[in-house]
């Protein structure tokens, strides 16, 4: 039962989406946290090397770590053939038929470190020490002839590695950056 009466000149306030909304006088239920407490989650490595931890590694140190923890999926000597793609070698140019590799496509070497540390090995991500990640990074970069066999990868040297395909990108929608 609802009584009918003069239709109200009510303006209903319609909540549109697509609008940023913050309530200065809002819930403010976010709890402050210090950088120190954040550290375990703050694992992003920036292209300029920001975030790279202490430690270092050489290709030679990386080889045994690779054999023990990576070869099962990525194949002997990083050549693939397992259930995952290879990490060393591959076609000279990346094409639509496949073959985006670290040497022929990845623009930054720091991404190799970041991804290995955060996501590898697949079943126990985050289980590698920083030393092991530097060593594996060095091993892969050397395997792809991007650094010399006895170069040492650390927080200073890794960002300086010049990846061949770095300047080969176009921003699709500049106005959206």
């Amino acid at each position, binding site marked *: 039962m609802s009584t009918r009466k003069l239709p109200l000149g009510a303006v209903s306030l319609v909540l549109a989406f*697509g609008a940023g909304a913050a309530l200065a006088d809002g819930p403010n239920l976010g709890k402050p946290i210090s950088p120190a407490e954040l550290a375990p989650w703050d694992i992003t490595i920036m292209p300029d090397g920001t975030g790279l931890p202490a430690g270092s590694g050489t290709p030679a140190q990386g080889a045994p770590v690779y054999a023990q923890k990576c070869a099962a999926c990525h194949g002997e000597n990083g050549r693939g053939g397992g259930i995952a793609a290879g990490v060393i070698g591959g076609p000279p140019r990346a094409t639509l038929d496949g073959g985006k590799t670290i040497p022929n496509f990845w623009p930054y070497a720091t991404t190799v470190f970041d991804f290995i540390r955060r996501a590898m090995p697949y079943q126990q991500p985050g289980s590698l020490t920083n030393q092991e990640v530097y060593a594996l990074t060095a091993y892969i970069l050397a395997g792809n002839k991007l650094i010399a066999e006895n170069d040492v990868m650390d927080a200073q040297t890794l960002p300086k590695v010049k990846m061949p395909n770095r300047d080969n990108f176009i921003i699709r929608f500049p106005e959206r950056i």
Partner: protein
Amino acid sequence: MASKQSSRRSQEPEVVAGNGLPDRRALLGRGIMFAGTMGTGLGGSLTGAAAEPLVDGPWSNEVGAVIQPYQTASRFEKNVVRTVDNPDNVPRNSRARTPHQLLNGIITPNGLHFTICHGGVPDIDPDQHRLVIHGLVKRPLVFTLDALARYPMVSRIGFVECGGNSAPLFSNIALQENVQALHGLASCAEWSGVLLSTLLEEAGIDPKAKWMICEGADSPRLHRSVPLAKGLDDAMVALYQNGERIQPGQGYPMRLWLPGYEGNMNVKYLRRVMLTEEPAMSVYESRTYSQILPNGKAYRFYFLQEVKSFISRPSHGLALREPGIYEISGVAYSGTGRITKVMVSADGGQSWAQAALQDPVLPKAFTRFRMPWRWDGGPAILQSRAWDEGGNFQPTRADFVAMRGQTTRPPPVTGFPSQHFNAITSWAVDAKGEVKHVYA
């Protein structure tokens, strides 16, 4: 990829459509109350035989089953499922595709929403989960789910589409696959949650900040760099999907939702947003979601899912049993905003008719288009082409391939030669009513 076109005349397709598509004015009026016109023209099926006498089905003569707390589809619909490409959870990505050919309307039911996981589906305890906002902010903050539940929320219907959806159409030869295999990595739901800007502004944004590094709590800790501008626009920390809490495959207990942006950026299991001046160039934005061009260069930061449409019925795998009236139906959507027009052709693009759009037409959401079609039994090629309110429109496949390239040999249908394919899809109907996937 939207190419600029100056002259309009050359592009506007011929409106009166051939091959059984009625003049669009036929769509406008309400059917005439033809109490009197039972002409043979509207004869029943070819056989014309009267229906046999009606008899009670067995289900009408017995008490039915008991209602369950969480109801599921009829056993006669058990084929309406997602196709999964990693059923044994082998250590690699796993994807589940939405069966568009079996669905209707614009809402994808939660059980059938597409899923891509890069480290399996995590089993996250919502009471332990935390969302941290830090970096170039005045005060780094941590939010619990209980806290977010008290914030002002918004609800919005919108699609999520993988940047690599429709990738099989980069194949140089049309793969004989159905619409689920070709376009199954896109779905549409009503998302409810807290606008990200609400939380960013509570943390206090440092004017130097230009990017947000958004990271998930899944095993690969998937992270993507998102322009801060998008964060302050319509980005949402989504908590509900079609009314209930988000499904595990869509990011339970919370995900980032960037209406109109490629799926991978809509980080699932969101646990961290770090404001920075520069993008992190994660493996996903520097390698995976960076599309190679024929000239050897590659796109970066594509972000936007551009205007796209495909016919879901009739389509490959749904044979037409007899000539007569059919409804051509499909979905159109654009990351730029609302769909303004969808044209349908039954003769491979020689002539077009404007389809009806089901209202309400919402921005950055699926829009259902419908076109009645009288199939005369002869061969036909069905195509749909969409325009959005930004003036963008779907390119023909030829124009698209000229700009973006294609493979030199047919890839596996579950492969991703490249991403951001939004050209026209064509279905060829033969005289027996079988539907093939073709390039036309």
